[in-house]
């Protein structure tokens, strides 16, 4: 069964001050995310990505259609707590997500609110901090950490609640290359080692290629849905909505236009180098 299911969902934010109704942020959107998947959601600013994240754990409720979390409809208030335990959300700005003055207390905040036994909280906090590689910093003050470290602490805080699905809304947007790599590795571990379903919203094409599946949003609707190879093979379509394909794809696209028969789905440096090598040796 799908862990998150959007069925013909439409959502619009409240009208502005003058009372003019706003266009829907999400329009007739259907998507089914299965347990254990690693899904990346791509789309330019304002395409509706973040609204999806908030609809997926009941922070926002649809105007039309419905959102099912592990079979529970998000409009049912009696399931609200269970829904929020099932799906955790990590936001873009790490500074807005830290609540405590010591790293391990911050991570313990979620499980404490769930009324979990102290010994079990201790176990979860340690295990979550180890997963994101921040265990050595457990006694530190969060304000002295780098952006990437803070973001990993925020992720640990979500893992400690043991959700079955984690949605990350541009978690790397404010980080430097090293911070981005560390957060990316932590996310991959959650999916691979703990079997947590990951929904990863990003602007970075080179991060999206790491997912099993990419969903592309445009103008509040679903535009594409497929494996990274399928999605990036259509460079023209990706560009038409203000996104871009990885540099390796751009390069092979230019060469293909000159009749050099490189593949159109070379997403990594390794794949591109091997394909060039094979072509040249084949001659």
């Amino acid at each position, binding site marked *: 069964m799908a862990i998150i299911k959007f069925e013909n969902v439409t959502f619009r934010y409240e009208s502005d001050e003058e009372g003019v109704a706003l266009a829907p942020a999400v329009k007739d959107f259907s998507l089914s995310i299965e347990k254990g998947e690693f899904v990346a959601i791509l*789309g*330019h600013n*304002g395409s509706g990505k973040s609204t999806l994240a908030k609809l997926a754990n009941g922070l926002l409720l649809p105007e039309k259609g419905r959102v099912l979390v592990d079979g529970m409809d998000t409009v049912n208030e009696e399931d609200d707590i269970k829904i929020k335990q099932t799906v955790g959300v990590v936001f873009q700005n790490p500074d807005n997500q830290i609540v405590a003055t010591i790293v391990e207390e911050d991570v313990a905040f979620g499980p404490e609110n769930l009324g979990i036994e102290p010994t079990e909280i201790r176990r979860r906090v340690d295990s979550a901090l180890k997963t994101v590689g921040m265990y050595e910093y457990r006694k530190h003050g969060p304000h002295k950490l780098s952006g990437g470290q803070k973001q990993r602490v925020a992720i640990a805080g979500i893992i400690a609640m043991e959700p079955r699905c984690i949605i990350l809304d541009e978690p790397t947007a404010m980080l*430097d*290359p090293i911070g981005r790599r560390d957060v990316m590795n932590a996310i991959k571990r959650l999916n691979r080692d703990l079997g947590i379903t990951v929904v990863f919203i990003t602007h970075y094409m080179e991060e999206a290629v790491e997912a099993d599946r990419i969903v592309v949003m445009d103008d509040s609707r679903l535009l594409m849905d497929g494996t990274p190879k399928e999605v990036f093979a259509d460079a023209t379509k990706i560009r038409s909505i203000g996104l871009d394909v990885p540099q390796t794809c751009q*390069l092979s696209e230019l060469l293909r236009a000159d009749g050099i028969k490189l593949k159109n789905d070379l997403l990594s440096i390794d794949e591109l180098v091997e394909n060039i090598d094979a*072509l*040249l040796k084949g001659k």
Partner: protein
Amino acid sequence: MSHLKTENLTYIYGAGTPFKITALDNVNINIEKGDFVAIIGHTGSGKSTLVQHLNGLLKPTDGKIFLDGEDIHQSKSKLFDTRFRVGLCFQYPEYQLFESTVYKDIAFGPANMGLSTAEIDERVRKAAKYVGIPDEMLSKSPFDLSGGEKRRVAIAGVISMEPEILILDEPTSGLDPMGREQILDLIKNYREKTGSTVIIVSHSMDDVARFATKVIVMNDSKVDLMGTVDGIFENSTHLQEIGLSVPQITEVFIRLRKKGYPVSEKIYTVEQGYRELKRLFEGSVNND
């Protein structure tokens, strides 16, 4: 003559306390008129502290900063003058919008320069045009705009002072690919039209490769390398050691060379890569 120069610039946060941290350690940089400078370095390497010295926001613990040969801290009036000649746009500048309308926000700088109402009006409209903010948006509240629009309004607020040196701290972070292109284009445009010197702090090696005429690499509070794009990126192993990277495309050519293909390693953009690979494929046809 150099346009902007630092001499043995040192800055210590919390000097005289047990928490002191040396953020800049004997930094010497030299920027010429019209340069497009990129400052790169991992988080905490001193990039932002450095740019905050260049318009006199921070006062050096030791060392000096010269604008057209004059010490910017030599007098109060010199420092005041420097703040307008060197415009600094912080990281995530959209969080610093504060006025009730876009117009007033952009006008804040020029108004502080003591310009007449007519001059201010001209500056505001010109700056808005540079960043692609249409006239009808000027009367809106800045808080009703999208993230990308807010960022452009914030940049217009600095451009409206018509600084000779425009400094932007990570101007494209958090934006989508189209937003990044727009911001980079407008910076390039501003530089070409006004002949201004531009300094950007960036994490994107791809952008640095495409735009910069000079690159300054910061590491551990010191200037690690300074030179042209070619000169910097040929040190790919060293850059990786200090937590940076080379453009993805450069990596492709490093691998091809390792496999024994006669390709240049000095490939930093998709366009250069395309020409080099085309040469390689055509060469292999001719050899048959």
